[in-house]
């Protein structure tokens, strides 16, 4: 699957950052990393554009859902935002914050692949 998507991965745990970024690169995404919700928001404040954001829930300084609310409030409504968490109660928090999708951890290639393809299709149309 050829892709020139720019992905922002927001994840405070080093192992999860490594695994998720490797998965995204497997689908030829350019991956930018943020270690918490504040860094996530700062990326958008600095004018960066992303095709997809993959965001953890519980992080220091600012959580994923808090960051998503701020990003959507800034007008970044086109970017696909996927919440990921091992927390059973995370889906509601992400969706009510404005995420487009929620995936329980651990992420699988068979789940990530179709999401990436969907973003590629939308970008090409």
């Amino acid at each position, binding site marked *: 699957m050829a892709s020139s998507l720019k992905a922002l991965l927001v994840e405070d745990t080093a192992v999860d950052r490594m695994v998720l970024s490797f998965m995204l690169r497997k689908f030829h995404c350019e991956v930018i990393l943020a270690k918490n919700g504040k860094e996530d928001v700062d990326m958008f404040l600095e004018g960066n554009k992303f095709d997809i954001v993959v965001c953890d829930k519980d992080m220091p300084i600012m959580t994923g859902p808090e960051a998503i609310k701020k990003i959507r409030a800034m007008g970044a409504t086109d970017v696909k935002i996927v919440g990921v968490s*091992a927390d059973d109660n995370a889906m509601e928090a992400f969706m009510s914050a404005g995420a487009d999708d929620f995936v329980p951890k651990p992420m699988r290639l068979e789940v990530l692949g179709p999401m990436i393809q969907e973003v590629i299709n939308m970008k090409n149309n």
Partner: protein
Amino acid sequence: MAAPMLNQPNSLLANMFAAGLLDDQFQELQMLQEGSAPDFIVKVVTLFCEDGERIIGEIAKLLDKPCVDYDKVGGFVRQLKGSSASIGALRVKNSCIQFHQCCQEKSKDGCVNSLDSVRNDFYDLCSMFKLHASAGPAGAGLPKQ
């Protein structure tokens, strides 16, 4: 004795799956490694063992204090739970789930006992990874120490 040595790493991994140390997420990582990144699992497992050791140390320090900050302990447990799930470290993940429950109940005894369980499961797993790595060419791809 070459043939048994070459077989040993695979049977070690099979034993780890059979013993409930690993689950199918580890197989997902093995699939990710195929092709372009032969050292991916080495890097992830090495990072898991190093970062996990750091986290366990931080939790131990927090539990040693007369007044335990259960939110901070819970935060570290959550991190270890997440990274365990990401690499398929099933037993460590399950121990972390129990530990998290004790944090929510603010039970010091429960947390101390849970830390022992997590520590034992974690070091069992990392020891097995090191054994696998030291088993020979077929074991290449996992950290040696």
